[in-house]
């Protein structure tokens, strides 16, 4: 079966900035596909090209077999989307904006069941549709675009960091609704994010983008070997010798009264019985994060964008954390 979304050697330049640098992406029908990458990696640019809002500098993109730039209108009948940075009209209420967008799509606001569906989604997302656009917070603006997209009956959903402004409760609602779309209608979803754990709950497969290229991908399980889970527990009288020799255990340190180490995520279950035998107290297990994955596997060639966030500004040794509790 042909992939629903396919890009081949996609390039996009903004002046001298190479936003996309030979991107090859494939999304299979009926799947939720995670599109992971740090800020500035090119996720939004990719989605905008897939929607025909931006034009690729070179390379090919197909969505549902259509050319996004030339067949935009036909494509938009079958694709719903949420932009990365949602803004709505300051003098229209949220409810009006949703209705207006649905009418542009297919006269949706007049279809039987539309209103019921809209009300249901507003309630689920705890969204007040009577406020004027200027009064909404970022999360609420995002809900307008989300509800307008979810209420549409489409084959493909392109969602650009749709949960970045939502609280955890709403994220759970979102997850449930996406699952429904996929299981009931067989829709295909491309979901971009810069947080691994967000995508983890939903995605069947992921592609990881960095500096405009796909650097890794596959099913989520096949990626787990790349990540390590952080484990820590109280130091009191535990003999760490038993752990030090194990091949699953890395970077064992003792600091501020706690013992910490990282374990290969796909082998955590092998470590847990040992911890049980040791009788550790105050056990904490932190899930692997995208950042960790990047640092561990691609750290030597991190793009400058992700370095900027660090307070000491762009030097690579900034990455080795200073030991906690010095002088103790």
């Amino acid at each position, binding site marked *: 079966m042909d992939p629903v979304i396919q890009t081949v050697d996609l390039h996009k330049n903004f002046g001298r900035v190479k936003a996309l640098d030979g991107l090859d992406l494939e999304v299979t029908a009926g799947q939720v596909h995670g599109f992971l990458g740090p800020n500035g990696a090119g996720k939004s640019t990719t989605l905008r090209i897939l*929607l025909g809002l931006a034009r690729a500098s070179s390379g090919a993109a197909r969505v549902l077999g259509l050319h996004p730039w030339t067949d935009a209108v036909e494509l938009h009948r079958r694709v719903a989307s949420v932009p990365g940075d*949602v*803004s709505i*009209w300051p003098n229209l209420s949220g*409810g009006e904006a949703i209705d*207006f*967008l649905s*009418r542009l799509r297919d006269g949706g606001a007049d279809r039987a069941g539309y209103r019921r569906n809209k009300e249901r989604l507003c309630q689920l997302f705890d969204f007040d549709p009577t406020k004027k656009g200027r009064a909404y917070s970022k999360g609420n603006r995002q809900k307008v675009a989300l509800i307008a997209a979810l209420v549409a009956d489409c084959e493909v959903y392109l969602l650009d960091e749709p949960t970045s402004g939502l609280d955890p409760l709403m994220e759970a609602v979102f997850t449930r609704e996406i699952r429904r779309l996929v299981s009931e209608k067989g829709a295909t979803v491309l979901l971009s994010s810069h947080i691994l754990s967000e995508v983890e709950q939903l995605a069947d497969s992921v592609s990881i983008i960095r500096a405009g290229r796909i650097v890794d991908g596959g099913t989520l399980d096949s990626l787990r070997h790349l990540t390590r889970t952080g484990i820590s527990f109280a130091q009191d009288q535990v003999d760490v010798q038993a752990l030090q020799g194990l091949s699953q255990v890395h970077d064992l340190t003792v600091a501020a009264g706690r013992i910490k180490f990282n374990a290969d995520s796909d082998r955590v279950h092998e470590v847990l019985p040992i911890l049980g035998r040791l009788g550790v107290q105050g056990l904490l297990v932190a899930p692997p994060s995208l950042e960790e994955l990047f640092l561990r596997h691609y750290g030597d060639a991190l793009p400058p964008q992700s370095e900027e966030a660090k307070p000491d500004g762009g030097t690579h040794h900034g990455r080795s954390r200073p030991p906690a509790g010095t002088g103790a």
Partner: protein
Amino acid sequence: MGGAARPRGRALEMSRFFDLYWQRLRRDRWQLLSWVASIGALAFFATTAVASAYGDDASRTEILHVATATPAILILRGLVRGPALDAFTFFQIFAFLGVLAGLMNTFLAVRHTRAEEEAGRAELVASTAAGRWMPLAATVTHGLVGNVLVAAAVTFGFIAGGLDAAGSLVAGLAVGATGLAFLTVGLLASEFMSTSRGANGAAAGVVVAAYLLRGFGDATGEVSQDGLTVTAAWPSWVSPIGWGQQTFAYTGNRLWPLLLPLGLGIICVSLTAVIMSKRDVGASVLAGRRGRTDARPSLRGPFALALRLQQGAIVSWCIGGFIAGLLTGALGAAIQQVSIANSSVTAILRAMIEAQGTSMTQLVIAVLFEIGGILAAACGLQAVLRLRQEEVAGTAELVLSQPLGRIRWFGSFLGLGAVSVVLVMVFAAFGAWYSLLVSGESAVEVSNLWETAGAQIPAALLYLAAPAAVFVTVPRATVPIGWALLALGVVLGIYGGMLGFDKSLRDLSPFTHTPVVTNTGTDWSGGFWMLGIGAALVTFAFLAVRRREVGTV
């Protein structure tokens, strides 16, 4: 201990204040520079143009006699204070400089107050130690410095043009003080309106009203015996631009009238402070109400969206056009009634003009419809500016991600722009027709009225077509180029003649080619040419918009 802490606290506050001030100056530096440079350059070029076109006292005396005999044209000029070159230049250009300074200041005020609140950035600042007063103080300081620069630019512009230094300083101070008054008007408008668009519109409306009021006062003022000086009537005294004229720069060099704009400034800032102390950040006196749960059935398709977004602006422009129209009857009657008996020169000239079949009211109509035409052009320009705003805000992306062709989206906004241009002129004509009916004026045929209104439409439509072509090719330049085209068109086309600009220069302005409706027949060729050029530009824009990306910043 407390004594030691307090000065340090004050020093900290001062440094925060300067941070806020620098932030404003940094953000505005190019914009402010171009306003100041344009205003100064206009003062300079007006002076040299007048000096070369009307070099001697005799030619200027002649012009002034015609002006006092046909006071309608004084609406677009100023207060007549004698034929000396410097006084004549001040008469020609001051009111327009006042409008430019006024617009610069109202936009500046709104940009740093209501617009910041609307974008949510003000909240960030208000929640820091900067509090709510310091940003206001920084904005006022920023405006003050801007007006000092404007005053200096005008002063040097006039001096460089060869005018008397002391009088030039008075003229510069008059422009600066006028600007300052409008700065505070902008601040107050920001308190009343809940959107920056609304605040900009209201404040700019006050500037235009001030211009028209002083025009009314100058046109109905008392003409002296020799027909070379006019004492303004009361409407000039309720206008900041009128106050600036009362300095009698070059002929009287009075500074006391400038106390009036300063006083108005103090009142407006105090009112602003009172309102600010009573409201939440982000709220306004005329706050937005709650909206509907569902859209009305009529909110369907891009044209309905354009209408919904633009309706407030279109209504305001139409009201502006209607008022300009209404003034014709009232002004025509007022001019007829002003006694010119004590000026034989003026009386003879007026009799001669009227003998040729041109009534005073017809001249009033011509002048006020010119203003109506500028309003209509601005209304057309706004349709394109709205498209650009939609794009920058990101709502264009939301709409164009739906199954809607770009051409339909683009065409809907332009179509509504064209409709609104026509509407503004319809309202102007209707206002004029009504006021003439009421004042019992019969000299003007009604068909003449509608023709004059229709004659303004081609030039106004060009201000829809040209910015549309800019929007599709150089999106980020849409706003500055749009306004610059309008300002240039007005300077060259409406003021160019009186300022003595070269014909080839004046021909660049669409307003120069607006057909002139007379009793003996009208040459429509200029109008058809402009319609043709407009159609070509729009065709080009439609072809180019298909190849253009959305959201190009």
